[in-house]
């Protein structure tokens, strides 16, 4: 046996770690734009567009609302996201319980109606809903956006909550009733706490979907400007650095929340 040459050792190492290398490359591809967004939040561009690196500056970070309408659109988006989350979570949880717990007629039609919004290109839903509003003579604005957001978030909430309720042991509720809990007590003390992670997942998903939605909002907003609409418009008019500041801040806040949640969850498991 001769010792393997350097080259063959390298190829062998490459072959053995191929999956790791490919996987981490993909992860890099996913993370790269976030890195760029963060780096360019410290840029001081020469023109109206923030696409080329000029020099380091913290101007945008010290004055995040320095661009007209930017923070207004951000607060509008947050408001819409909160109300859309609330609406779609309540309506979706009710549907999920009906589907998971009861037998009823028209079950398959209900499932189809819930599946279709998730399987349809957004632009089709957006144009149809806008057609309805136009025909009804409804003024586009806050309410039309909210209605549209609740509509497309609903199915995702149902999917998240239904999965959780289906996997719940029905004997727990029977046990509660055997111990003389009223139906309301059983629901509040047993059913709801067990379903809570599913409901929370559905709510989080709705919030993210609503906050970041562009296509449906684009068709149903009229002249109202949400945060994604502001970014879209700025791509034509000139991109202020503040957009990157807000993008970076959202990323950091969300990652911190996730990490804190993970740590808290880990500690609870240990104790």
């Amino acid at each position, binding site marked *: 046996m001769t010792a393997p040459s350097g080259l063959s050792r390298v190829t062998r190492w490459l072959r053995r770690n191929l999956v790791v290398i490919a996987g981490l490359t993909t992860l890099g591809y996913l993370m790269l734009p976030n890195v760029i967004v963060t780096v360019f939040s410290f840029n001081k561009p020469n023109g109206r567009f923030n696409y080329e690196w000029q020099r380091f500056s913290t101007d945008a970070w010290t004055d995040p609302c320095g661009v007209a309408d930017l923070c207004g659109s951000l607060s509008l988006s947050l408001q819409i996201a909160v109300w859309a989350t609330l609406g779609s979570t309540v309506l979706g949880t009710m549907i999920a319980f009906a589907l998971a717990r009861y037998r009823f007629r028209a079950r398959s039609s209900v499932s189809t109606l819930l599946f279709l919004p998730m399987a349809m290109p957004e632009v089709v839903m957006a144009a149809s809903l806008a057609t309805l509003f136009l025909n009804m003579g409804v003024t586009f604005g806050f309410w039309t956006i909210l209605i549209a957001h609740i509509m497309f978030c609903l199915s995702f909430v149902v999917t998240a909550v239904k999965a959780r309720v289906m996997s719940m042991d029905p004997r727990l509720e029977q046990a509660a009733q055997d111990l003389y809990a009223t139906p309301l007590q059983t629901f509040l003390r047993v059913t709801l706490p067990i379903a809570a992670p599913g409901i929370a997942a559905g709510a989080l998903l709705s919030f993210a979907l609503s906050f970041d939605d562009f296509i449906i909002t684009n068709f149903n907003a009229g002249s109202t400007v949400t945060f994604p609409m502001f970014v879209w418009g700025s791509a034509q008019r000139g991109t202020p650095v503040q957009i*990157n500041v807000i993008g970076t801040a959202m990323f950091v806040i969300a990652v911190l929340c996730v990490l804190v949640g993970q740590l808290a969850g880990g500690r609870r498991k240990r104790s």
Partner: protein
Amino acid sequence: MASPQATATDRPAPEAPPALRAAARRKKLVPYWLLLPGILWLLVFFAAPLVYQASTSVQTGSLEEGFEVTWHFATYWDAATEYYPQFLRSVGYAATATAGCLALGYPLAYLIALKAGRWRNLLMILVIAPFFTSFLIRTLAWKTILSDGGPVVSALNSLHVLGLTDALGITEGHRVLATPLAVVCGLTYNFLPFMILPLYTSLERIDPRLLEAAGDLYAKPITTFRKVTFPLSMPGVVAGTLLTFIPATGDYINAELLGSTDQKMIGNVIQSQFLRVLDYPTAAALSFILMAAILAMVTLYIRKSGTEDLV
């Protein structure tokens, strides 16, 4: 006497007193009350608009005089013949992006599900984390990454890759921005998580003992992958490709931000017909053709991949 159990079943015994029977009837109505508000919402704001859209597509008229249903089916023909390049382009870009997502996403999903061990949670967070920055901002970042003087384009140029892709018609004039490559790159990037998550779910469910068994039976790693791992991950592949392909076909953001007028997709046409030209019948007809085309392709695909019960 009715036993207490009678209330628990849907059908009370015939001799049940009227009060119990009424309670049972009320109980039967519970699911309908639970469904009512949400389903009504979907019927009014999702299903009814589609009907409206259908009627709009066969209307004629103008914004000033108003539109009227004239069963003008020629709109469909006109729209299809005028915009078939955009249709074909949308399907082509979306299919390429879906293939790219599968090629890029599979190794990462495999890594997280089967190899990551204690790094699994961290990698999962890293996959989801980019979501938290608005996707429009991230798409704009690609303008920086792919900019003409940027490191990516310079590297590709010095390796003579762009000369080759120019010849193939994927890029143009030794640049990447405003070419099909940029749009497909953006689509792939934007829908990658939708591919990774279902792939991860189905790979994570695989019993590692099956893979060990394949190895014990002298299967080479590549054979194990081909005969065991990949077939078992098929539900994730099907779900992931659908979740990527459907929204990518209707997308107009990447083509608008990263492409030029030569890369317009069908979503761009619908958007401009509806919001700028205000030609509602054409926009409606195009939406319906898009919807029908996607439904047909998806049905065919699900049949072919033989996982009807899984979707």
